[in-house]
């Protein structure tokens, strides 16, 4: 299976990566090389095989039903959360206007 230039432009748009004409020119053959190579997976008979979900079997744990049980992931850390924001205003993340 191969991808066209239009398809790559669509994928880039889905992935929210702006891509100019030059970048598309480079990316289309590179992606097709990789996709041609992974195509060999289709020759494997996988009927009756379950797709892997957990590589080492492990059960999902329940944590204690306690507010802020783990201090590092607890609430009340607004300043820490905002510390690296490119734009923080009034205790919130600042973004360009989204509603016209």
């Amino acid at each position: 299976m191969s991808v066209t230039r239009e398809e790559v432009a669509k994928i880039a748009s889905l992935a929210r990566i702006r891509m100019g004409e030059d970048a598309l020119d480079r990316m289309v053959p590179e992606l097709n090389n990789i996709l041609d190579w992974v195509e060999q997976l289709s020759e494997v008979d996988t009927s009756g095989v379950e797709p892997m979900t957990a590589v080492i079997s492990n059960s999902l744990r329940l944590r204690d039903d306690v507010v802020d049980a783990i201090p590092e992931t607890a609430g009340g850390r607004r300043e820490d959360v905002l510390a690296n924001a490119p734009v923080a205003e009034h205790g919130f993340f600042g973004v360009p206007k989204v509603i016209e």
Partner: protein
Amino acid sequence: MTDLTELGIKAIREGVANGDFTAREVAEGFNAAVAAASELNAFIVATPDHALAAADAVDTKRAKGDDLGTMGGVPIGMKDLFATKGVQTTAASHILEGFEPQYESTVSQNLWDAGAGMLGKLNLDQFAMGSSNETSYFGNVVSPWRKSNGANTDMSPGGSSGGSAASVAARIVPAATGTDTGGSIRQPAAFAGITGIKPTYGRCSRWGVVAFASSLDQAGPMARSVEDCAIMLEAMAGFDPKDATSLKMEVPNWEAGLNADLKGKKIGIPKEYRMDGTDAEILESWEQGKEWLRDAGAEIVDISLPHTKYALPAYYIIAPAEASSNLARYDGVRYGLRDLPEGSGLQDMYAATRAAGFGDEVKRRVLIGTYVLSAGFYDAYYTQAQKIRTLVAQDFEKAWSQCDAILAPTTPTASFPLGSLSDDPLTMYLNDVFAVPASLAGLPAISVPAMLNSDGLPLGLQIIGKPFDEQGVLNAGLAMQQRANFDAQPEKWW
């Protein structure tokens, strides 16, 4: 006095505990070595004050007669994929340039709690995506090794933990953290003539490690010997409630359990790893490895891992798919770079930020991942790859009925010159062909230096073990280390 930078973890720990030298002297020695090695470009930032403060704390404890910890007085390099509180953490990307975590990763905190200090944050392939350390926004890491023919060609340290491998090999750190998603500890360890182990998936917490492919990512140590790796892995590992896939198991005392007597052990040789085009000297080192293990008392048995050929292409669907999802968080809103073209809106900001902030290899993988997860292609690519991952894991499970561990080369070639493969992503990917199957199956695996090839470059051998059997992997590695007597060091040119 001996040059302290010649010492590894165990020797430093014992020297500090015995009072042969102070932790501060060790930290000062390595800080100077780091500062003098800028040509390797192994560090993104040096943190000499962190190393000194940790050393002083250990020296104070010793004066008081307190326990110094299993890594007491050992300064290490930290791959710049681990969040370190107040110290820039970039994953070697532009999009995270300037990012200063407000918290410490579990693995790094465990190391500080064990008495280690930090010499700095080590360069890597961007978001750990690469096998040559040529995708970093902060420039290539240069291997300290050069070919013995006198040509001063810059060689690749491997990747993605290239800064870790280069700095351990150059003796500017006694040990470093690495992370392994599809070979990123073992392949650079092999290229640099050092030892590195990836533990069973879940042994080391992923909390605070910049995510690449979460079902594969595992941290591990890179050091100068199997013993040092055992000590450091013990300090890094442990259950962490903050990581949903963390193993709720006791951390064994791997250092105390080291035993190079392999009597009664069976070591499997997978026939599928003998691939066309594998370097003759690699095959020779593999034969040598069999001899060493036989000499240590092991029985060598032939085994088959029939789906080996499909592991790498399956990995190049699964890892990019997970990466495309994980890297969606870089949006120019919460942290990192923001590129807001004049008069543009939110969607344009996302796209501009990610275009400016991600390197080419990262974009390539995000696009592949987005494609294989997209409607209409998901089953053909992603589901099929996950089924093949099951088959790869089943191959190993069947092999464990015949053997206790597996011996294989770590890489199909020795290190290559920087720039020689960077135009050809696919050929670069093939460098991890022997490393990826163990990653897909979540198994512990070590790379131990075996010999120098005719170019004077190191070759590594890999031991892959059963789930949770790091001890068996370390022991077989130790048996090879004792027989390889690999003491070659790169000649200092930096």
